[in-house]
């Protein structure tokens, strides 16, 4: 059992903002000191570019950068470092797959299956390529608790299904989807599967070999790493036959005036100077999460969800969305308070130093399914405590008073 008070003490932001109750980690997580230090150390003591230099500092930068790739590979249990591509985040990772792999492999009449839970980042790249290639997008329905209907998925699949792109954990409802079952079903008809792990990678251990997904995307900043860096995992076999979407510096081994030969994996997908500091920062974040242990992270999360659900249910007029079951819910709870618009609620909570998100959370189609325009969303990470939830409940009751409810 970890001491989570000690963990919270490692986040400098709570020293400069002593009263802060941060409940918006699904948007971005706060950064532990070790991550800030790692970035600072790179800029202070190294500063050179990677993969180019003939001198010590560049060699050091390359070691740090490639070391972080190894860390990511182990973190998600990929077979090889060749399968780990650094991107700017989940959005770019999914765009790489939709426009890169999809641009090369999808053809007119092919079908793409998504779900009603998808964030716009796992919807719009597919809309774009579907329009270009004249493909059809189908959506797996969710039930009233925000759980994907696997039977409906089975009905949607056909010989035309080429790719299935699903979120592992919903950024609005926190639903943990049983993605392994979906992956097995999709593979049975030879469709490829992309998993959007933006909300799951920070909260639970992932094993891409056991899941057997073809692509997996996540962001560094939601797991304590810096902004501007993310990961695209893809099976080596697929990467070998996929053309890079971007070309330019350092992704080639030979260039003539009319021809270029691509570099080895994974570098052929990393054109230009990479996000060296950010990747090093992400490596530090993962090392730190490993020290805590992802099972501990998940169990802390589960306890907070359980406590929050129990306390929120006591408030008259609260409507909770999603599974409301800590066993299949991670990090996030969406709700509405009768008679108070979520945006007003967020403003009142802000005046109590409580940061929450209100709105459609980049999931406008899901809002339609939930029959609402917006929800208030709280989301947790390892620095949150039961005390935070107690403060939240007090502030919600204050909002009720202001709105005379």
């Amino acid at each position: 059992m970890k001491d989570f008070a000690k963990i919270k003490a490692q986040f400098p932001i709570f020293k400069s903002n002593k009263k802060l109750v941060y409940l918006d980690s699904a948007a971005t997580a706060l950064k532990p000191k070790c991550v800030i230090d790692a970035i600072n150390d790179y800029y202070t003591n190294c500063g050179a570019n990677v993969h180019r230099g003939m001198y010590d500092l560049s060699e050091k930068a390359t070691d740090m950068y490639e070391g972080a790739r190894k860390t990511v590979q182990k973190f998600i249990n990929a077979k090889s470092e060749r399968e780990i591509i650094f991107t700017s985040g989940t959005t770019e990772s999914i765009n790489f797959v939709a426009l890169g792999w999809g641009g090369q492999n999808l053809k007119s009449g092919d079908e793409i299956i998504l779900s009603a839970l998808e964030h716009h980042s796992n919807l719009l790249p597919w809309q774009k390529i579907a329009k270009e290639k004249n493909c059809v997008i189908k959506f797996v329905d969710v039930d009233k608790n925000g759980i994907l209907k696997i039977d409906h998925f089975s009905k949607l699949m056909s010989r035309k299904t080429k790719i299935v792109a699903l979120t592992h954990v919903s950024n609005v409802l926190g639903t943990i989807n049983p993605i392994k079952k979906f992956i097995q079903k999709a593979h049975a008809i030879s469709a490829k599967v992309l998993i959007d792990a933006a909300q799951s990678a920070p909260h639970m251990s992932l094993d891409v070999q056991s899941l057997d997904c073809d692509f997996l995307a996540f962001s560094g900043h939601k797991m304590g790493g810096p902004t501007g860096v993310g990961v695209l995992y893809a099976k080596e076999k697929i990467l070998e036959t996929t053309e890079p979407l971007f070309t330019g510096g350092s992704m080639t081994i030979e260039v003539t005036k009319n021809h270029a030969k691509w570099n080895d994996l994974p570098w052929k997908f990393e054109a230009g100077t990479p996000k060296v500091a950010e990747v090093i920062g992400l490596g530090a974040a993962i090392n730190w999460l490993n020290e805590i242990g992802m099972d501990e992270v998940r169990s802390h999360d589960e306890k907070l969800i359980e406590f929050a659900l129990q306390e929120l249910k006591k408030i008259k007029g609260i409507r909770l969305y999603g599974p409301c079951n800590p066993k299949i819910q991670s990090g996030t709870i969406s709700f509405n308070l009768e008679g108070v618009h979520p945006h007003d609620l967020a403003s009142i909570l802000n005046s109590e130093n409580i940061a929450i998100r209100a709105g459609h959370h980049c999931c406008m189609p899901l809002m339609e399914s939930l029959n609402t325009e917006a929800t208030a969303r709280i989301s947790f990470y390892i620095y949150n405590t039961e005390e935070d939830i107690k403060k939240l409940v007090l502030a919600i009751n204050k909002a009720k008073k202001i709105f005379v409810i």
Partner: protein
Amino acid sequence: MELYRDIIIELYKNPLNKRKIAGATLKASGANVTCGDRIRIYLKIDKKGKILDASFEGSGCAIMTASASLLTEKVKGKTLNEIKKWKDKKIFDFLGTELSHTRIKCGLLPLETLQQCT
């Protein structure tokens, strides 16, 4: 909290002019992409350009709803050209409070939408 003055809460619960105008002369729609506020403004204007009636439909937070209520009330009897010159401050005056940068879009959405009526 100062922002939520009684008048704002009251207008949120009982908005003014929240209805459709059948046979409206002009209509315009607006939305705030970040928070999901939506509004549709209806105007009935006479031949001289004077606003005879104004109303709104839509859904949003207390700030947006109060702002839309007051705006549709205050524009009656004025011309659209006059209203098009109105600046943010008018809305702050109506609401009796300035708005922080996180809420300014909510408060200004009704005016900005009305100003799009052509």
